[in-house]
């Protein structure tokens, strides 16, 4: 049986390339809504995908398990299921284990078996690790060791649903109309050098971080080598994976605020830094000097999300599209404005963020406090 890496990159190319359509929609008040509008919007950008991958991440969908890790696992064979379940039951208290409801009549290609587990790490096994680190470790283990199992979602009160097909077909397959979330991240994929397999579709997820991405990182080789120094295995060989691990390293492990993280991914030019006040100049110079290997060079637009926060960002010279819009409590991010207009013909505001300037929508706890940072 092939490993995830072999499945994902059949020709052993440097990496897997994608061009894509992105869509994100977040109700900043925390109101949950169904999949209908996000699916309609991403489907409208049909030209941006080629049927070899579609996917969604929905946040706030498992309120009854809000404190437990929801592991979504795809199994390519029975043996890997047995191996994975041994790992899961040895390391976690399993609150529920069930087949993810799917519709086999949907227009998708050879779906693997989809299963989900609501789990909690066994406290006595944590030793010095945090629960999050422990989960990451077990996820990597299942993905690397079981030859056929792939954990594609591992956050709390959120879930990723993805596979080979157009996004609307994937939505139908996973019966997304049965879920309600306050934030939906959607992706239509156009890979150029992989036949596409279910695990290789996007979003890419680690814990509750989800990334969808459009473009190709010219800097991938060094981004990856840098992350390898911090023990991240880039098994999927995609830009999206590198972006997700970068966010995990900087945001979760090093505690750097998201606003600063975006300035590491897409830093200001030296020429712009030269014009800053001394404090800013010192900050940005230090950031570029220290994290130069995490500069994401080349064209990209991304939507990255985790519990309570959604961020859109393009590369610093804006080589990929991104449109942002607001309507009441709703923040939209999309590769194309037309997809937003399709679900919200009238908007309060619509704009094209500057290259390297993030658009961040933030939900503050369960209160009605809303914050949109938009440049």
């Amino acid at each position, binding site marked *: 049986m092939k490993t995830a890496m072999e499945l994902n990159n059949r020709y052993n190319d440097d990496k897997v390339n994608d061009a894509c359509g992105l869509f994100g929609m977040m109700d900043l008040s925390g109101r949950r809504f169904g999949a209908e509008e996000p699916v309609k919007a991403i489907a409208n950008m049909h030209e941006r995908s080629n049927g070899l991958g579609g996917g969604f991440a929905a946040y706030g969908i498992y309120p009854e398990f809000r404190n437990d890790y929801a592991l979504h696992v795809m199994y390519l064979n029975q043996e890997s299921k047995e191996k994975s379940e041994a790992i899961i039951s040895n390391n976690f208290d399993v609150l529920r284990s069930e087949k993810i409801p799917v519709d086999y009549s949907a227009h998708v290609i050879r779906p693997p078996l989809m299963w989900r587990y609501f789990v909690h790490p066994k406290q006595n096994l944590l030793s010095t690790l945090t629960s999050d680190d422990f989960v990451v470790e077990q996820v990597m283990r299942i993905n690397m060791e079981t030859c056929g199992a792939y954990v594609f979602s591992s956050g709390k009160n959120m879930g990723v649903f993805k596979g080979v097909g157009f996004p609307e077909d994937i939505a139908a397959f996973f019966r997304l109309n049965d879920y309600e979330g306050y934030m939906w991240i959607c992706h239509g994929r156009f890979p150029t050098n992989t036949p596409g397999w279910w695990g290789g579709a996007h979003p890419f997820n680690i814990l509750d971080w989800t990334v969808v991405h459009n473009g190709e990182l010219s800097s991938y080789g060094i981004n990856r080598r840098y992350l390898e120094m911090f023990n991240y295995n880039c098994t999927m060989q995609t830009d999206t994976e590198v972006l997700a691990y970068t966010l995990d390293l900087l945001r979760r492990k090093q505690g750097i605020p998201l606003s600063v993280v975006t300035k590491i991914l897409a830093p200001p030019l030296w020429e712009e830094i030269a014009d800053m006040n001394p404090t800013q100049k010192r900050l940005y110079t230090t950031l570029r000097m220290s994290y130069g290997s995490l500069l994401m060079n080349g064209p990209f637009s991304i939507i990255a999300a985790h519990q309570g926060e959604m961020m859109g960002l393009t590369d610093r010279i*804006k080589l990929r*599209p991104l449109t942002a819009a607001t309507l009441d409590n709703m923040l939209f991010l999309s590769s*194309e*404005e037309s*997809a937003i*207009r399709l679900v919200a013909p009238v908007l309060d505001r619509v704009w*094209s963020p500057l*290259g390297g300037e993030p658009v961040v929508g933030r939900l503050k706890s369960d209160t009605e406090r809303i914050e949109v940072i938009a440049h």
Partner: protein
Amino acid sequence: MTEESLSSAIRNRINMKDGIVHVDAGGLHYKDLNTILRTLGNPVPIVHIENVYGQRYIGTDLSNNMEIHICGTPGNDVAAFLDGSTIIVHGNAQDGVGNTMNRGRVIVHGRAGDIVGHSMRGGEVYIREDVGYRCGIHMKEFEGKKPLIVVGGTGQDYLGEYMAGGTLIVLGLKMGSKPIHHARFLGTGMHGGVIYLRGEAVHTSKEVQIKPLDESDYKILRRDVEAFCKEFEIQPEPIMECEFTKLIPASKRPYGNLYVY
């Protein structure tokens, strides 16, 4: 090709009323939409396309003299390779408006995305509000052809990049009486044509020089601003009261000393 050659499903989208052809584009593929536009014969009609949500290439390569109204949000490359006709967008446009167009007019009652007028060689583009990155990139003029872009709002970075000819006017109408245009690398690589900014630029490239406007500039400016104002029913006089900045290339060959042989 005639209207009869269209499939009945497509034909059902077309509806003639008061001498105007109405096309319902809801869910229609761009190929079918452009087939309709090419099929509508003489006399050349006024076409209203409704329910447009992201269909690309609307009006591509049209060489007749239609007046096409797009209601909704057209997809990328609206009016690409346009060679005649007038395309009026009642809403915002995405990236690539007027890509490599040769002749004709495009009027956008809203904003437009990146690379407006990419490599256009002729024709006119009027955008009522802001434009994205690299507006007017590599627009050029040739013999009798001289392209024009007038932007009512302001532009993002690399405005007029590689510009080799034509006129790019940026008015900053919502930016007060003395607009400051924040686009960086304005006119980078510019080696032909002229950019007029109402107000001032903060970051021009080394390849451009700022010149005072003379009477002939104002003549051009008045003509083009009036044309813009006519489309959007705005008073031209207050616009012209503000000071303008004129940017022209510092050299026709900005990279002359770059190479050794």
